[in-house]
């Protein structure tokens, strides 16, 4: 990558309604202990689904459904924190697998809400989406863009099958956003890997008008651990760094057991892994930025630190990147 770039700002947004495992227990036969043991999830936030009334409108005014609202909230906060306005943004990349409308892309109303006219598009690489977006953001800065607003936002509670006791407790809503800016020096993106195995569509999918998410959990677990470790290893090799050089590992927050299994195989200790799964659940494209934002807000990152992003998702997609934090990341 030719031009340098840095993440200069970040912010998160979450819907108000907290859905606990006790709430989930009112839907079908399960227990807090069963859910926590298998997933590490204690609560999630919901913008839709059986615990939220009134529901969002089916035809959101101006396209601003719950995904767009969360994206605009997180994106707007990230702009404000950087002292920027929408006019400063050359491109908005909205990573989502739960857009508000079939047409247009949810990034359009979000761009309107934030005053962005540079360009806007949605990226759907399922739960691997945010790291796909990060690689694209760095690439666009490499060919002349000054600033990219990169957002991961989801309303998974809208596509959850609330009668499915094997996976309904997994999903949550939220958004995380970062500003990626051109900066002097080398690119922050030191190594990356994107991939897909489209023969695995049936492991995890949701149909238009269908009952919601369908997932073969155990097989997803097995594939997820393997593809994430494999992809992260490739990114580390391409960046010419070792796992022991990584200051913060930010995996897709799907299931604490998968995160632990991946970190263990990569030989990255738990204290260097960012985790929000306990209180967010699986928020797909929003999970990596939510975990990054929390870690950055906690002061766990210093300029020069190496961050390893890695995710996997329906498709089956995967993505990983080694990213050098700062300077300018304050």
């Amino acid at each position, binding site marked *: 990558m030719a031009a340098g770039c840095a993440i200069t700002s970040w912010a998160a947004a979450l819907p108000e309604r907290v859905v606990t495992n006790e709430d989930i227990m009112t839907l079908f036969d399960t227990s807090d202990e069963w859910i926590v*043991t*298998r997933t590490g999830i204690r609560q999630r936030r919901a913008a839709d689904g059986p615990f939220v009334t009134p529901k969002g409108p089916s035809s959101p005014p101006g396209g601003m459904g719950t995904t767009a609202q969360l994206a605009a909230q997180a994106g707007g906060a990230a702009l404000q924190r950087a002292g920027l306005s929408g006019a400063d943004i050359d491109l908005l990349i909205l990573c989502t697998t739960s857009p508000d409308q079939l047409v247009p892309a949810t990034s359009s109303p979000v761009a309107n809400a934030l005053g962005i006219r540079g360009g806007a598009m949605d990226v759907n690489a399922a739960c691997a989406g945010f790291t796909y977006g990060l690689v694209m953001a760095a690439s666009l800065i490499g060919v002349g863009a000054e600033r990219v607003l990169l957002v991961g936002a989801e309303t998974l509670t809208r596509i959850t099958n609330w009668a499915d006791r094997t996976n309904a407790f997994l999903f949550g809503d939220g958004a995380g956003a970062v500003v990626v800016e051109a900066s002097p020096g080398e690119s922050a993106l030191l190594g990356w890997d994107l991939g897909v195995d489209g023969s695995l569509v049936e492991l995890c999918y949701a149909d238009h008008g269908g009952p919601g998410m369908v997932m*073969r959990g*155990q*097989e997803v*677990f*097995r594939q997820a*651990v*393997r593809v994430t470790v494999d992809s992260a290893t490739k990114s580390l090799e391409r960046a010419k760094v070792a796992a022991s050089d990584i200051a913060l590992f930010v995996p897709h927050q799907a299931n604490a*057991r998968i995160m632990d*299994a991946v970190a263990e195989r990569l030989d990255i200790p738990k204290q260097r892994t960012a985790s929000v799964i306990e209180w967010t659940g699986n928020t797909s494209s929003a999970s990596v930025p939510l975990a990054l934002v929390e870690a950055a807000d906690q002061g766990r990152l210093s300029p020069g630190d190496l961050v390893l992003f890695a995710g996997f998702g329906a498709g089956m997609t995967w993505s990983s990147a080694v990213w050098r934090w700062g300077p300018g990341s304050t």
Partner: protein
Amino acid sequence: MAPEDTFDAFKQCAVEVLQVDPSKIVPEARFAEDLDADSLDLVELVMALEERFGVNVAESELEGVQTVGQAYELVTSKL
């Protein structure tokens, strides 16, 4: 690999993944009741065994596997 070595290798994987005392890994031990292992523990064990023995076990083949002996049979039948 002699049968006793094979079982030792199996036992080593099981002890590491399930974090139980080696003496508990006997053919009649039941994963759920005796080893406190849930379905994801079993998936992780099979992943470790696949890597250790260089075999592939399909998801469908795991159905009905309830004891150490059944898992050992499943893996060694592929060697």
